[in-house]
Protein backbone atom coordinates (compact mmCIF):
# COMPACT_ATOMS: atom_id res chain seq x y z
CA UNK A 1 0.00 0.00 0.00
CA UNK A 2 1.22 3.46 -0.88
CA UNK A 3 2.56 5.13 2.26
CA UNK A 4 1.88 8.64 3.45
CA UNK A 5 4.80 11.03 3.83
CA UNK A 6 6.33 13.40 6.38
CA UNK A 7 8.04 16.34 4.72
CA UNK A 8 10.41 18.91 6.19
CA UNK A 9 10.42 22.27 4.44
CA UNK A 10 13.40 24.60 4.55
CA UNK A 11 12.93 28.25 3.73
CA UNK A 12 16.06 29.83 2.34
CA UNK A 13 16.74 33.53 1.92
CA UNK A 14 20.07 35.05 0.90
CA UNK A 15 22.29 32.42 2.50
CA UNK A 16 20.15 31.76 5.59
CA UNK A 17 17.44 29.36 6.64
CA UNK A 18 14.43 31.01 8.14
CA UNK A 19 11.59 30.57 10.52
CA UNK A 20 8.50 31.92 8.82
CA UNK A 21 5.49 33.29 10.66
CA UNK A 22 2.57 34.34 8.46
CA UNK A 23 5.20 34.69 5.72
CA UNK A 24 7.39 37.12 7.66
CA UNK A 25 10.84 35.58 7.75
CA UNK A 26 13.23 35.49 10.65
CA UNK A 27 16.81 34.43 9.97
CA UNK A 28 17.79 31.38 12.00
CA UNK A 29 21.11 30.18 10.63
CA UNK A 30 23.13 29.27 7.59
CA UNK A 31 23.78 25.78 6.27
CA UNK A 32 26.46 25.18 8.91
CA UNK A 33 23.92 25.98 11.61
CA UNK A 34 21.48 23.58 9.99
CA UNK A 35 24.06 20.80 9.79
CA UNK A 36 25.03 21.31 13.44
CA UNK A 37 21.53 21.59 14.92
CA UNK A 38 19.72 19.08 12.82
CA UNK A 39 22.39 16.47 11.99
CA UNK A 40 20.73 16.48 8.67
CA UNK A 41 22.22 13.29 7.30
CA UNK A 42 20.91 11.42 10.35
CA UNK A 43 17.41 12.83 10.63
CA UNK A 44 16.87 12.56 6.87
CA UNK A 45 16.19 8.89 7.50
CA UNK A 46 13.19 9.77 9.65
CA UNK A 47 11.75 11.96 6.92
CA UNK A 48 10.25 10.92 3.62
CA UNK A 49 11.01 13.99 1.62
CA UNK A 50 12.53 17.47 1.87
CA UNK A 51 11.27 20.67 0.27
CA UNK A 52 13.66 23.61 -0.08
CA UNK A 53 12.22 26.97 -1.05
CA UNK A 54 14.18 30.00 -2.16
CA UNK A 55 12.43 33.05 -0.69
CA UNK A 56 15.17 35.53 -1.51
CA UNK A 57 13.76 38.85 -2.67
CA UNK A 58 14.52 40.70 -5.88
CA UNK A 59 16.32 38.71 -8.54
CA UNK A 60 16.63 35.48 -6.64
CA UNK A 61 20.20 34.33 -6.73
CA UNK A 62 19.78 30.95 -8.34
CA UNK A 63 23.49 30.18 -8.37
CA UNK A 64 23.92 30.52 -4.59
CA UNK A 65 20.69 28.64 -3.95
CA UNK A 66 21.81 25.83 -6.24
CA UNK A 67 25.20 25.51 -4.57
CA UNK A 68 23.54 25.35 -1.13
CA UNK A 69 21.26 22.64 -2.52
CA UNK A 70 24.22 20.74 -3.86
CA UNK A 71 25.78 20.71 -0.38
CA UNK A 72 22.51 19.86 1.36
CA UNK A 73 21.78 16.74 -0.71
CA UNK A 74 25.08 15.05 0.06
CA UNK A 75 24.38 11.78 1.86
CA UNK A 76 20.66 12.54 2.06
CA UNK A 77 19.00 9.55 0.42
CA UNK A 78 15.44 10.79 0.24
CA UNK A 79 13.81 12.92 -2.46
CA UNK A 80 14.33 16.67 -2.52
CA UNK A 81 11.93 19.11 -4.13
CA UNK A 82 13.33 22.59 -4.73
CA UNK A 83 11.94 25.83 -6.05
CA UNK A 84 11.34 29.53 -5.62
CA UNK A 85 11.78 32.07 -8.39
CA UNK A 86 12.03 29.63 -11.28
CA UNK A 87 11.63 31.73 -14.42
CA UNK A 88 12.62 29.39 -17.24
CA UNK A 89 13.13 25.77 -18.17
CA UNK A 90 16.87 26.49 -17.85
CA UNK A 91 16.37 27.58 -14.21
CA UNK A 92 14.61 24.29 -13.51
CA UNK A 93 17.46 22.42 -15.15
CA UNK A 94 20.01 24.13 -12.86
CA UNK A 95 18.13 22.82 -9.81
CA UNK A 96 17.81 19.30 -11.24
CA UNK A 97 21.55 19.29 -11.94
CA UNK A 98 22.29 20.32 -8.37
CA UNK A 99 20.31 17.60 -6.68
CA UNK A 100 16.62 18.42 -6.97
CA UNK A 101 14.41 15.43 -7.73
CA UNK A 102 11.34 17.60 -8.21
CA UNK A 103 10.71 21.25 -8.95
CA UNK A 104 8.38 23.45 -6.91
CA UNK A 105 6.57 26.18 -8.84
CA UNK A 106 4.44 28.94 -7.36
CA UNK A 107 4.20 32.37 -9.05
CA UNK A 108 5.02 30.82 -12.43
CA UNK A 109 1.82 28.76 -12.24
CA UNK A 110 -0.11 32.01 -12.62
CA UNK A 111 2.32 34.16 -14.58
CA UNK A 112 3.94 31.67 -16.96
CA UNK A 113 1.58 28.79 -17.72
CA UNK A 114 3.40 28.03 -20.98
CA UNK A 115 6.70 27.59 -19.19
CA UNK A 116 4.96 25.29 -16.71
CA UNK A 117 3.65 23.19 -19.60
CA UNK A 118 7.16 23.03 -21.12
CA UNK A 119 8.65 21.80 -17.83
CA UNK A 120 5.85 19.22 -17.48
CA UNK A 121 6.35 18.04 -21.06
CA UNK A 122 10.11 17.67 -20.67
CA UNK A 123 10.46 16.36 -17.12
CA UNK A 124 7.07 14.72 -16.71
CA UNK A 125 4.21 15.76 -14.43
CA UNK A 126 5.59 13.74 -11.53
CA UNK A 127 8.56 16.14 -11.38
CA UNK A 128 6.45 19.23 -10.82
CA UNK A 129 4.98 20.33 -7.49
CA UNK A 130 2.48 23.19 -7.63
CA UNK A 131 2.76 25.33 -4.50
CA UNK A 132 -0.27 27.40 -3.52
CA UNK A 133 -0.28 30.03 -0.75
CA UNK A 134 -3.73 31.12 0.41
CA UNK A 135 -5.89 32.86 2.98
CA UNK A 136 -9.50 31.64 2.90
CA UNK A 137 -10.48 31.76 -0.80
CA UNK A 138 -7.71 34.21 -1.79
CA UNK A 139 -4.58 32.96 -3.53
CA UNK A 140 -1.31 34.89 -3.21
CA UNK A 141 1.83 34.71 -5.34
CA UNK A 142 5.26 36.37 -5.03
CA UNK A 143 6.01 35.06 -1.51
CA UNK A 144 2.47 35.75 -0.37
CA UNK A 145 2.53 39.42 -1.36
CA UNK A 146 0.40 39.66 -4.49
CA UNK A 147 -3.23 38.58 -4.46
CA UNK A 148 -4.54 37.13 -7.73
CA UNK A 149 -8.01 37.26 -9.21
CA UNK A 150 -8.87 33.55 -9.14
CA UNK A 151 -10.47 31.94 -6.07
CA UNK A 152 -8.62 29.07 -4.41
CA UNK A 153 -10.86 26.18 -5.48
CA UNK A 154 -10.92 27.03 -9.17
CA UNK A 155 -7.22 27.91 -9.15
CA UNK A 156 -6.37 24.44 -7.86
CA UNK A 157 -8.75 22.73 -10.30
CA UNK A 158 -6.94 24.65 -13.03
CA UNK A 159 -3.54 23.38 -11.84
CA UNK A 160 -4.89 19.86 -12.11
CA UNK A 161 -5.81 20.48 -15.73
CA UNK A 162 -2.35 21.99 -16.36
CA UNK A 163 -0.98 18.56 -15.46
CA UNK A 164 0.95 19.63 -12.39
CA UNK A 165 1.95 16.46 -10.49
CA UNK A 166 1.25 17.38 -6.85
CA UNK A 167 -0.23 20.24 -4.85
CA UNK A 168 1.63 21.84 -1.92
CA UNK A 169 -1.14 23.68 -0.10
CA UNK A 170 0.13 26.27 2.36
CA UNK A 171 -2.04 28.36 4.67
CA UNK A 172 -0.55 31.84 5.13
CA UNK A 173 -2.74 32.39 8.17
CA UNK A 174 -1.56 29.24 9.95
CA UNK A 175 2.05 29.49 8.72
CA UNK A 176 4.53 29.36 11.60
CA UNK A 177 1.86 29.77 14.29
CA UNK A 178 2.11 26.23 15.62
CA UNK A 179 -1.69 26.28 16.06
CA UNK A 180 -2.35 23.33 13.75
CA UNK A 181 -3.32 22.89 10.12
CA UNK A 182 -6.29 24.56 8.42
CA UNK A 183 -8.28 21.32 8.44
CA UNK A 184 -11.51 22.72 6.92
CA UNK A 185 -9.82 24.02 3.78
CA UNK A 186 -7.67 20.90 3.49
CA UNK A 187 -10.77 18.70 3.62
CA UNK A 188 -12.58 20.78 1.01
CA UNK A 189 -9.63 20.90 -1.41
CA UNK A 190 -8.83 17.21 -0.99
CA UNK A 191 -12.36 16.34 -2.06
CA UNK A 192 -12.26 18.32 -5.33
CA UNK A 193 -8.95 17.12 -6.79
CA UNK A 194 -7.59 13.75 -7.78
CA UNK A 195 -3.88 14.20 -7.33
CA UNK A 196 -1.37 13.89 -4.48
CA UNK A 197 -1.89 16.59 -1.84
CA UNK A 198 0.81 17.90 0.51
CA UNK A 199 -0.45 20.17 3.29
CA UNK A 200 1.60 22.82 5.06
CA UNK A 201 1.18 25.64 7.53
CA UNK A 202 0.55 25.43 11.25
CA UNK A 203 2.08 22.22 12.57
CA UNK A 204 3.37 22.88 16.07
CA UNK A 205 3.53 19.37 17.45
CA UNK A 206 3.05 15.73 16.52
CA UNK A 207 -0.68 15.82 17.29
CA UNK A 208 -1.14 18.36 14.51
CA UNK A 209 0.74 16.10 12.11
CA UNK A 210 -1.51 13.22 13.17
CA UNK A 211 -4.69 15.22 12.65
CA UNK A 212 -3.81 16.12 9.06
CA UNK A 213 -2.14 12.88 7.99
CA UNK A 214 -5.21 10.94 9.17
CA UNK A 215 -7.39 12.68 6.55
CA UNK A 216 -8.18 10.23 3.78
CA UNK A 217 -7.00 12.22 0.76
CA UNK A 218 -3.98 13.88 2.33
CA UNK A 219 -0.79 12.25 1.03
CA UNK A 220 1.79 14.18 2.97
CA UNK A 221 2.16 16.58 5.90
CA UNK A 222 4.84 19.24 5.79
CA UNK A 223 6.32 21.39 8.51
CA UNK A 224 8.72 24.28 8.13
CA UNK A 225 8.93 24.95 11.82
CA UNK A 226 12.65 24.99 12.62
CA UNK A 227 12.08 25.62 16.33
CA UNK A 228 9.30 23.22 17.25
CA UNK A 229 11.01 20.21 15.70
CA UNK A 230 14.64 20.95 16.51
CA UNK A 231 17.05 18.16 17.41
CA UNK A 232 15.19 14.86 17.69
CA UNK A 233 11.80 16.50 17.16
CA UNK A 234 11.17 14.96 13.76
CA UNK A 235 12.36 11.40 14.54
CA UNK A 236 10.21 11.49 17.70
CA UNK A 237 7.18 12.77 15.82
CA UNK A 238 7.56 9.94 13.33
CA UNK A 239 7.74 7.38 16.11
CA UNK A 240 4.56 8.83 17.62
CA UNK A 241 2.69 8.67 14.29
CA UNK A 242 3.73 5.07 13.72
CA UNK A 243 2.52 4.18 17.23
CA UNK A 244 -0.80 5.77 16.26
CA UNK A 245 -0.94 3.38 13.27
CA UNK A 246 -0.27 5.95 10.55
CA UNK A 247 0.63 4.38 7.24
CA UNK A 248 4.31 5.44 7.17
CA UNK A 249 7.50 3.62 6.24
CA UNK A 250 8.56 1.95 9.48
CA UNK A 251 12.15 1.05 8.74
CA UNK A 252 14.75 3.72 8.24
Amino acid at each position, binding site marked *: *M*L*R*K*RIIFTLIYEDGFFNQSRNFRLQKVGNIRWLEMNYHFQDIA*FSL*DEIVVLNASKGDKNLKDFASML*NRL*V*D*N*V*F*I*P*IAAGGGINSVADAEVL*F*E*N*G*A*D*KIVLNSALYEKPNMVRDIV*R*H*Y*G*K*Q*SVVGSVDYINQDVFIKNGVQKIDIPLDSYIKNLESMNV*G*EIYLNSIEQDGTGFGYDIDTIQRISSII*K*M*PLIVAGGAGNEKHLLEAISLENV*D*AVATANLFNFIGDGLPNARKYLIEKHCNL*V*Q*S*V
Partner: protein
Amino acid sequence: MKVVIVDYGMGNVRSVASALKFLNVDSIISSEEKDLNKADKLILPGVGAFGSAMEMVKARGLDVALCEQVIQRKKPVLGICLGMQLLGVSSDEGGGTEGLGFVDGCVGIFNDEYVIIPHIGFNQVTPKSSSRLYRGMGHSLDFYFVHSHKMDSNSDIGQSYCDYNGNFVASFERDNIAGTQFHPELSKTNGLDVLKNFLELF
Protein backbone atom coordinates in the same frame (compact mmCIF):
# COMPACT_ATOMS: atom_id res chain seq x y z
CA MET B 1 35.50 -0.82 -9.77
CA LYS B 2 34.58 2.00 -12.09
CA VAL B 3 30.94 2.98 -12.54
CA VAL B 4 29.70 5.35 -15.20
CA ILE B 5 26.42 7.16 -14.57
CA VAL B 6 25.15 7.66 -18.07
CA ASP B 7 24.15 11.27 -18.52
CA TYR B 8 21.78 12.18 -21.32
CA GLY B 9 20.59 15.45 -19.85
CA MET B 10 17.45 14.26 -18.10
CA GLY B 11 16.94 14.58 -14.41
CA ASN B 12 18.89 14.24 -11.27
CA VAL B 13 22.16 12.31 -11.56
CA ARG B 14 23.54 14.06 -8.49
CA SER B 15 21.77 11.77 -5.96
CA VAL B 16 22.93 8.63 -7.73
CA ALA B 17 26.54 9.87 -7.60
CA SER B 18 26.11 10.75 -3.93
CA ALA B 19 24.79 7.27 -3.12
CA LEU B 20 27.72 5.60 -4.91
CA LYS B 21 30.18 7.81 -3.04
CA PHE B 22 28.52 6.76 0.22
CA LEU B 23 29.11 3.12 -0.80
CA ASN B 24 32.79 3.94 -1.47
CA VAL B 25 32.53 3.38 -5.20
CA ASP B 26 34.19 5.61 -7.78
CA SER B 27 31.81 6.94 -10.35
CA ILE B 28 31.82 9.48 -13.11
CA ILE B 29 28.93 11.14 -14.88
CA SER B 30 29.39 10.97 -18.63
CA SER B 31 27.89 10.22 -22.01
CA GLU B 32 31.28 9.83 -23.75
CA GLU B 33 31.89 6.55 -25.54
CA LYS B 34 35.47 6.35 -24.26
CA ASP B 35 34.22 6.52 -20.65
CA LEU B 36 31.52 3.90 -21.26
CA ASN B 37 34.22 1.70 -22.77
CA LYS B 38 36.34 1.81 -19.62
CA ALA B 39 33.44 1.32 -17.22
CA ASP B 40 32.91 -1.91 -15.27
CA LYS B 41 29.25 -1.12 -14.68
CA LEU B 42 26.74 1.34 -16.01
CA ILE B 43 23.84 3.12 -14.35
CA LEU B 44 21.15 4.67 -16.53
CA PRO B 45 19.09 7.11 -14.46
CA GLY B 46 16.38 9.40 -15.70
CA VAL B 47 13.40 11.50 -14.86
CA GLY B 48 10.93 12.81 -17.38
CA ALA B 49 9.08 11.93 -20.51
CA PHE B 50 9.96 8.76 -22.44
CA GLY B 51 9.84 10.43 -25.86
CA SER B 52 12.14 13.34 -24.92
CA ALA B 53 14.50 10.91 -23.20
CA MET B 54 14.84 8.61 -26.24
CA GLU B 55 15.50 11.67 -28.41
CA MET B 56 18.29 12.78 -26.07
CA VAL B 57 19.72 9.24 -25.94
CA LYS B 58 19.80 9.00 -29.73
CA ALA B 59 21.13 12.54 -30.19
CA ARG B 60 24.19 11.51 -28.17
CA GLY B 61 24.62 8.20 -29.99
CA LEU B 62 23.93 6.41 -26.72
CA ASP B 63 21.51 3.91 -28.27
CA VAL B 64 24.36 2.45 -30.32
CA ALA B 65 26.96 2.80 -27.55
CA LEU B 66 24.73 1.15 -24.92
CA CYS B 67 23.87 -1.70 -27.26
CA GLU B 68 27.56 -2.38 -27.76
CA GLN B 69 28.40 -2.26 -24.05
CA VAL B 70 25.35 -4.07 -22.69
CA ILE B 71 24.32 -6.53 -25.41
CA GLN B 72 27.63 -7.36 -27.08
CA ARG B 73 30.08 -6.89 -24.21
CA LYS B 74 27.59 -7.99 -21.52
CA LYS B 75 28.46 -5.12 -19.22
CA PRO B 76 26.14 -4.89 -16.20
CA VAL B 77 23.63 -2.07 -16.40
CA LEU B 78 21.09 -0.77 -13.90
CA GLY B 79 18.29 1.39 -15.24
CA ILE B 80 16.53 3.58 -12.69
CA CYS B 81 12.95 4.86 -13.08
CA LEU B 82 12.74 6.27 -16.60
CA GLY B 83 16.16 4.70 -17.27
CA MET B 84 14.62 1.30 -16.48
CA GLN B 85 11.69 1.97 -18.80
CA LEU B 86 14.08 2.93 -21.63
CA LEU B 87 15.61 -0.57 -21.46
CA GLY B 88 12.21 -1.98 -22.50
CA VAL B 89 10.70 -2.39 -25.95
CA SER B 90 8.36 0.56 -26.15
CA SER B 91 6.18 3.09 -24.38
CA ASP B 92 2.76 4.34 -25.34
CA GLU B 93 3.64 7.69 -23.73
CA GLY B 94 2.99 10.54 -26.16
CA GLY B 95 1.64 8.43 -29.00
CA GLY B 96 4.18 5.61 -28.86
CA THR B 97 7.98 5.52 -28.82
CA GLU B 98 10.43 2.65 -29.23
CA GLY B 99 12.83 2.00 -26.37
CA LEU B 100 16.28 0.39 -26.40
CA GLY B 101 14.65 -3.05 -26.49
CA PHE B 102 17.13 -4.86 -24.20
CA VAL B 103 14.33 -6.59 -22.24
CA ASP B 104 10.79 -7.60 -23.14
CA GLY B 105 8.71 -5.02 -21.35
CA CYS B 106 6.19 -2.44 -22.51
CA VAL B 107 5.38 0.80 -20.75
CA GLY B 108 1.88 2.21 -20.36
CA ILE B 109 0.10 4.69 -18.14
CA PHE B 110 -1.71 3.73 -14.93
CA ASN B 111 -5.49 3.68 -15.21
CA ASP B 112 -6.65 6.90 -13.56
CA GLU B 113 -10.15 5.57 -12.96
CA TYR B 114 -8.82 3.55 -10.06
CA VAL B 115 -5.70 5.25 -8.75
CA ILE B 116 -4.22 8.68 -8.35
CA ILE B 117 -1.56 9.50 -10.91
CA PRO B 118 1.34 10.08 -10.43
CA HIS B 119 2.19 7.20 -8.10
CA ILE B 120 4.35 9.14 -5.61
CA GLY B 121 5.79 7.92 -2.34
CA PHE B 122 7.07 4.79 -0.64
CA ASN B 123 5.39 1.54 -1.59
CA GLN B 124 6.27 -2.10 -0.97
CA VAL B 125 8.03 -4.46 -3.32
CA THR B 126 7.72 -8.22 -2.94
CA PRO B 127 11.09 -9.57 -4.08
CA LYS B 128 11.21 -12.62 -6.34
CA SER B 129 12.88 -15.33 -4.27
CA SER B 130 15.82 -15.88 -6.65
CA SER B 131 16.51 -12.15 -6.88
CA ARG B 132 20.06 -10.84 -6.69
CA LEU B 133 18.96 -7.20 -6.32
CA TYR B 134 17.26 -7.88 -2.97
CA ARG B 135 19.56 -10.63 -1.68
CA GLY B 136 19.81 -10.65 2.11
CA MET B 137 16.86 -8.30 2.49
CA GLY B 138 13.28 -8.90 3.71
CA HIS B 139 10.06 -10.07 2.06
CA SER B 140 8.20 -6.78 1.82
CA LEU B 141 10.39 -3.76 1.27
CA ASP B 142 9.61 -0.06 1.02
CA PHE B 143 11.06 1.94 -1.86
CA TYR B 144 10.38 5.42 -3.21
CA PHE B 145 8.42 5.64 -6.45
CA VAL B 146 7.61 8.71 -8.51
CA HIS B 147 6.06 7.91 -11.88
CA SER B 148 2.91 7.99 -14.00
CA HIS B 149 3.82 5.12 -16.35
CA LYS B 150 4.51 1.51 -15.47
CA MET B 151 6.11 -1.48 -17.12
CA ASP B 152 4.39 -4.79 -17.77
CA SER B 153 5.88 -7.92 -19.28
CA ASN B 154 4.54 -11.29 -20.38
CA SER B 155 8.02 -12.79 -20.35
CA ASP B 156 10.19 -13.93 -17.48
CA ILE B 157 12.57 -11.02 -17.06
CA GLY B 158 13.22 -11.81 -13.39
CA GLN B 159 10.64 -9.28 -12.33
CA SER B 160 9.57 -8.38 -8.80
CA TYR B 161 6.27 -6.64 -8.32
CA CYS B 162 4.72 -3.71 -6.53
CA ASP B 163 0.96 -3.34 -6.13
CA TYR B 164 -0.82 -0.12 -7.08
CA ASN B 165 -4.32 -1.30 -7.89
CA GLY B 166 -2.70 -4.31 -9.55
CA ASN B 167 0.85 -5.52 -9.93
CA PHE B 168 3.38 -3.74 -12.08
CA VAL B 169 7.09 -4.41 -12.64
CA ALA B 170 8.95 -2.78 -9.74
CA SER B 171 12.25 -4.25 -10.92
CA PHE B 172 13.69 -6.76 -13.34
CA GLU B 173 16.99 -8.58 -13.56
CA ARG B 174 18.10 -10.75 -16.42
CA ASP B 175 21.76 -11.78 -16.79
CA ASN B 176 23.68 -8.49 -16.85
CA ILE B 177 20.63 -6.25 -17.27
CA ALA B 178 18.68 -4.87 -14.32
CA GLY B 179 16.21 -2.10 -13.73
CA THR B 180 14.24 -0.59 -10.88
CA GLN B 181 11.11 1.50 -11.30
CA PHE B 182 11.77 2.95 -7.86
CA HIS B 183 14.68 5.19 -6.98
CA PRO B 184 17.22 3.24 -4.89
CA GLU B 185 19.19 6.46 -4.38
CA LEU B 186 16.12 8.03 -2.69
CA SER B 187 14.95 5.00 -0.71
CA LYS B 188 16.90 5.27 2.53
CA THR B 189 18.72 2.12 3.69
CA ASN B 190 16.73 -0.30 1.50
CA GLY B 191 17.77 1.62 -1.57
CA LEU B 192 21.44 1.67 -0.62
CA ASP B 193 21.27 -2.12 -0.08
CA VAL B 194 19.87 -2.65 -3.58
CA LEU B 195 22.61 -0.51 -5.11
CA LYS B 196 25.22 -2.45 -3.16
CA ASN B 197 23.76 -5.74 -4.40
CA PHE B 198 23.86 -4.52 -7.98
CA LEU B 199 27.49 -3.48 -7.61
CA GLU B 200 28.54 -6.74 -5.94
CA LEU B 201 26.38 -9.39 -7.61
CA PHE B 202 26.09 -8.32 -11.25
